């Protein structure tokens, strides 16, 4: 670790949140989902 990194490091823990594409699924019940459900009903 360089001096610069030591000075700027915070207490925030590093964390891997997962694969970017796979984790991009948005909130349930969005407008597209409603359109599909209306047509299928």
């Amino acid at each position, binding site marked *: 670790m360089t001096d*610069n*990194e030591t000075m*700027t*490091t*915070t207490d*925030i*823990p*590093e*964390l*891997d*949140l*997962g*694969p*970017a*594409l*796979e*984790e*991009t*699924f*948005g*909130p349930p019940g*969005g*407008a*597209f*989902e409603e*359109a*599909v459900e*209306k*047509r*299928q009903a």
Partner: protein
Amino acid sequence: MPPPARFGVFHATIDGAPLLLDVDNDRYRIARPPHPIPTSPLPRLMTAAHLTGPKETIWPNGTPSPRPCFAALTCLLRISRALQQGRLANLISTLLAISRPDRPRSDLAVEDLIASFCAVRPLYPAQAICRLDAPALCALLWAYGRPARLVFGARLEPFSAHCWVEIGAAVVNEDREDVLQYAPIMAVSA
């Protein structure tokens, strides 16, 4: 064979936590500073600094017509194929290949294009999910000369990522309040 495109690392600060979107390694992560400077060699990729929350919504209050309906199905198919490769970089590469920024602006209203997309969407045999529908709708709007952008955003506690379409200060076919729950981190413009 040309080398794969490099898209870079983008970041946003959410509730004081530094969130990184590493497109090339297909990862979301929290990382301590110092961070890579979030610039991209591609001018069509926008950083969080250029993105603000939408002020209104454009809904599909228009009339579907055959040609954009067919185009919407084509866009859905192309995006589906890109998603099968399983990486965000592949999706962005596909979008950039589809896009033709010099495309002439159509006389059809944006509402008509969205209505066309929504009319045929139930016919396409895939679950409604933002990573398919938003890029496909964005590609359709590009095909008709509309300056849409595909925005990627995330929230924490719990972590969740989303993507949506914007034109100007409006989000397309999505409740503005839903979108404002996510901090924009990167966008692909036309």
